[in-house]
């Protein structure tokens, strides 16, 4: 493949239009055949010719085709065709005539590579999509190069023949598919909370429900109201007996991907972990952010967050005691939750304890009381403990 800057296209007549991929003016005979129909040559351009060596012409801005350019409409067949230049000896196909010419050298055939000579009156060409419903069908949205229009037509209106095995995503353009397959499945997704995912769908679902997302929004809201920050950081009650040590937003026991429980979690349930996720909160500036969200962002109140954490840590530290004392857990629990502005009146431990212990017995005794003879046999049942009822 030779850089088109140093080669000119052959001027030999071929049935289909053949152009190189950059936007420079080409030299073509005007008789292009039936496949190339200029839609509307709106303006006539005086092309200034640069002396050798040619300065590289700048690409025009995407979406703004040169108003003086010649608009070309190629047929779907042309756009989808590949390897139209065929070697007469071995039938090998090539996308470009230059490549065919160079190949012909190998057969000791006469070959001709023409310098692209720019003549006066040659205009830049832009291409429209033949599909009438397509946005690029209109000349004002024409694309600047042939490869571009070909790829566009394939991607948007063509058959998606190439499919990724791993994620079943489909592609019409082979190079798109190839590029995707290289990275598919290798990409890892990291949530703000620190968890890594290899699957995009589980990452997305996790992210939507992750506390880190809630906290990020809380931070933004905290710029406006203090109360908002406190409320948003409240967690709902997670019973210490059944689950992890008191689930604080600052405790990342749930999110650590490693199988070994974090030693901090085990020994001192109420010790605030100083690192995670607060640093991520402080450092985190959303990179991919919707315009809506970025428009509403306020300067981050970093000092406020830091104050909250140390205060919480201080509070925790002062209420350290023997972890085996349930009432002490509850006291500390209340302290923390009050500090965080949690709603009072949550069940706490004793409610659940009484339920689990008594449930099975309840069932048996209730049954025995209600039914006369029949149930008496069941009194002798070994009392079923909380195994049946608790959830």
């Amino acid at each position: 493949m030779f850089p088109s800057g140093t080669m000119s296209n052959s001027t030999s007549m071929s049935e289909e239009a053949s152009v190189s991929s950059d936007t420079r003016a080409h030299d073509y005979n005007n008789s292009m055949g039936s496949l190339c129909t200029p839609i509307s040559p709106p303006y006539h351009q005086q092309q200034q010719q640069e002396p050798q060596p040619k300065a590289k012409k700048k690409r025009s801005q995407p979406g703004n085709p040169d108003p003086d350019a010649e608009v070309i409409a190629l047929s779907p067949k042309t756009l989808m065709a590949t390897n139209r230049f065929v070697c007469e000896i071995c039938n090998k196909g090539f996308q470009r005539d230059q490549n065919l010419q160079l190949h012909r050298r190998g057969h000791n055939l006469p070959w001709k590579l023409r310098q692209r000579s720019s003549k006066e009156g040659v205009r830049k060409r832009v291409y429209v999509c033949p599909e009438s419903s397509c946005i690029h069908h209109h000349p004002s949205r024409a694309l600047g190069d042939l490869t571009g229009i070909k790829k566009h037509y394939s991607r948007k209106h063509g058959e998606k023949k190439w499919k990724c095995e791993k994620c079943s995503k489909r592609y019409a353009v082979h190079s798109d598919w190839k590029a995707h397959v290289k990275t598919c499945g290798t990409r890892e997704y990291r949530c703000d909370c620190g968890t890594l995912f290899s699957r995009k769908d589980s990452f997305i679902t996790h992210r939507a429900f992750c506390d880190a997302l809630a906290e990020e929004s809380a931070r933004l809201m905290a710029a406006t109201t203090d109360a908002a920050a406190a409320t948003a950081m409240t967690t709902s009650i997670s019973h210490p007996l059944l689950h992890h040590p008191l689930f604080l937003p600052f405790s990342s026991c749930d999110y650590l991907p490693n199988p070994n429980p974090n030693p901090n979690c085990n020994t001192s349930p109420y010790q605030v972990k100083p690192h995670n996720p607060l640093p991520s909160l402080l450092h985190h500036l959303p990179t991919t952010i919707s315009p809506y969200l970025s428009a509403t962002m306020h300067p981050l109140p970093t000092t406020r967050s830091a104050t909250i954490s140390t205060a919480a840590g201080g509070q925790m530290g002062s209420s350290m005691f023997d972890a085996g004392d349930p009432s002490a857990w509850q006291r500390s629990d209340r302290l923390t939750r009050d500090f965080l502005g949690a709603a009072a009146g949550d069940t706490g431990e004793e409610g659940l304890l009484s339920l689990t212990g008594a449930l099975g017995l309840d069932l048996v005794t209730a049954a025995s009381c209600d039914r006369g003879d029949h149930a008496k046999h069941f009194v002798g049942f070994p009392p079923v403990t909380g195994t049946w009822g608790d959830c």
Partner: protein
Amino acid sequence: MSTSRQSEPDDPSANEKWAASLLLDCAKAISEKDSSKIHQLLWMLNELASPYGDCDQKLASYFLQALFCKATESGERCYKTLVSVAEKSHSFESARKVILKFQEVSPWTTFGHVASNGAILEALEGEAKLHIIDISNTYCTQWPTLLEALATRSDETPHLRLTVVVTVSMGGSVMKEIGQRMEKFARLMGVPFELQVVRVASQLGELKEEDLGLREDEAVAVNCIGALRRVGVEERGDFIRMLCNLRPRVVTVVEEEADFTSTRSEYVKCFEECLRFYTVFFEMLEESFAPTSNERLMLERECSRSILSVLACDEDGGGECDRREKGSQWCARLMEAFSPMSFSDDAIDDVRALLKRYRSGWSLLPAQGDDSGLYLTWKDEPVVWASAWKP
């Protein structure tokens, strides 16, 4: 296992599937009203059962509870107790943890999500205002990936309104928290979003069109995941007709493959089917989760209410109905008001790609003959059915 019965010629607990045979014998004894046999079997089961043991012990434990309540006619009371215990320990945190973990280790719920989202996206393609009516039991975990697809796939991101229909069994605080997360996530994705929660007073079958607040200019999709089975058996026809009156572009229906409906007058047959289904479910859970998983325990406990409802409660007394039907049965019902919509090749490919991300044993099976839809199979046994319908 108890060793006190060495005098017996064959120790029932030594058999491979001792639980199944004991449970079935007990069900038969109940249906024949053989009270001494009932007592003997209940006593034996109680000795051997445990919700913390192997699959047999677990099944024995949960089915024993149902048999006991059936024998003592205390099903309704026990159900109420289970519901109240669940409500007290139920929180957003615990629900999130359980369902996200479940979705990580098993495609049981994500299968339905991926298939339904594929059908919904296809049916609503090009619409600017979408309204999805979500009647499901998966706590909105279906929607983050749909939101992401809306944000990235479409040229013009449509406006999405989500109406989540909940019955009394799902706690208010849980849904509030979920709603907030959904709103935040939609903002992050850049999808204009509106959420409303519709609470149905008692039975799902009482949902009315007026409750949903439909608007003139929106394209409606109805998403039913594990929903139709919660409608009273006699009211299912009316409910389906009500859905049709909403003039949806698509209705997605996902149900677990079991029949607790056609046999509801024959106790032993119903019991057999119930035992068959939950045996598959519990075995699947055992193979998918780590041995000491707390989340698996929670999922198993949630089954106990369903089992009790089907096997020990009267039609009207047991609280929420939970009578599953098989795909072919639902097809017959839905055909009265809708015609089947086949899943696109892309959607099916997405499901296949999904299954590849899980452990082996899972597969996809299109419905045969007159039936439509897609089955998820576990070790070649169809377990979940997904389908799409249009008026």
